[in-house]
């Protein structure tokens, strides 16, 4: 039997025998099950994954009828990042009319709510003008990015400097103050963009600064839903695991530190999130099949309890997509098909 072409998590090509491929799938699902305290994939699901990975086709796709919606984070930022010199509204038109996107997102290169608060009146007219000429749903997105609230970038003492000095309580108090400030900024910016007509708000890369970051996003969502009951909020996570930088923060009585996607989803639903985007990180030293089985195990556990649409992140470095600026279509398409068809997803 010929070897099966696949890759490592950094995108490096490799080949596996059938036995090696199945071993990696089994090891990947066991790793996720152990970390998340969730069931591993069944033998049938592993066989389904095996067939997807072992397909001789360079590019694979979902079966007819299994098509899902794609949402995008930081869309207008990414067009500029690759050096295409177009205005943001033109970038949106590229997504809409050239790429055939289902939804799109307007954003600023300084992709955090804190800096956006002071220029939101310059962002609103761009959104309002974009909405006049485009057809498909348009999000406005940014990150909570609580790292910007501590000194020297922000007003509060830096927990990373306090903790090495043993000032644990002081560090925790600083995190608690940043949460309140971040909630005010998220609500101010998201509220302004909603009132300018945005179809949705994407609170993106949530949890990048740990449990305080996640709490700020949950509380901001709760407040926005209270002020604007019809607002659509998509919450995209930064990583698979909420890091306990504070350690004691809770939402609705649940400690945030240490939550994996299926538990993050429960809190997002309680806060009023409309669409949830969980993340599973890619391990660069393991194979793509290992990463895929691991990601599918985490996301399947979330998919089974989701009452809101679930759009897992499937970009570079997450969702078994290799950590590379040019993710290869062979793995991206296999990962997308596998995630959609095994995990009961509504989008990516």
């Amino acid at each position: 039997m010929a070897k099966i072409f696949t890759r490592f998590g950094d995108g490096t090509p490799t080949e596996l025998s059938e036995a090696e491929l199945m071993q990696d799938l089994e090891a990947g699902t066991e790793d996720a099950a152990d970390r998340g305290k969730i069931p591993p994939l069944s033998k049938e699901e592993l066989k389904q994954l095996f067939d997807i990975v072992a397909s001789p086709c360079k590019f694979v796709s979902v079966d007819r009828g299994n098509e899902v919606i794609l949402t995008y984070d930081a869309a207008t930022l990414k067009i500029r990042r690759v050096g295409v010199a177009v205005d943001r509204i033109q970038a949106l038109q590229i997504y809409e009319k050239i790429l055939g996107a289902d939804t799109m997102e307007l954003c600023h290169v300084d992709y955090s709510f804190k800096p956006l608060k002071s220029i939101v009146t310059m962002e609103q007219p761009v959104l309002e003008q974009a909405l006049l000429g485009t057809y498909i749903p348009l999000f406005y997105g940014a990150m909570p990015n609580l790292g910007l609230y501590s000194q020297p970038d922000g007003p509060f003492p830096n927990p990373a400097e306090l903790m090495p000095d043993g000032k644990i309580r002081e560090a925790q108090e600083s995190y608690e103050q940043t949460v309140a400030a971040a909630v005010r900024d998220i609500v101010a910016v998201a509220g302004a963009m909603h009132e300018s007509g945005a179809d949705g708000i994407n609170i993106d890369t949530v949890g990048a600064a740990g449990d305080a970051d996640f709490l700020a996003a949950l509380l901001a969502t709760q407040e926005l839903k209270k002020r604007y009951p019809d607002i659509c909020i998509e919450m995209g996570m930064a990583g698979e695991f909420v890091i306990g930088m504070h350690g004691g923060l809770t939402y609705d009585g649940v400690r945030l530190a240490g939550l994996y996607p299926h538990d993050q989803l429960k809190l997002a639903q309680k806060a009023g999130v409309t669409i949830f985007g969980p993340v599973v990180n890619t391990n660069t030293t393991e194979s793509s099949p290992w990463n895929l089985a691991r990601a599918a195990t985490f996301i399947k556990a979330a998919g089974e309890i989701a009452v809101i649409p679930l759009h897992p992140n499937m970009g570079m470095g997450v969702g078994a997509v290799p950590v590379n600026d040019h993710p290869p279509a062979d793995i991206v398409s296999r990962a997308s098909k596998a995630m959609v068809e095994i995990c009961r997803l509504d989008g990516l």
Partner: protein
Amino acid sequence: MGGMRAAGDLVARLQMTRGMKIAEAKKYVADRLKISVADLCDPVIMTEVRQDLQLGTMSPQPGDARGIEAKFRIAEALGIDINCVQRFRAKAGLLIPDSPPRTR
């Protein structure tokens, strides 16, 4: 789902405005447009449907509804409120005073 090439934007609007899961959202849009769920992902069929209902197409013809004009049609066809359409109505003085809120 192919965005405006098919019905991806329309199905997305049901996830965003009503929180529908994918199967429910597809069925809702198909029923409203009086087509099959399979048709939603077919760019040939959907171009005709979108042209007939003026929901916006990838290659609009002269005189077709464009941008916000098409979104007025989409809101009506799907029976949903679209935020920027509501804002346009308010800014253009098109809201009927004391009109009851749209049934959702």
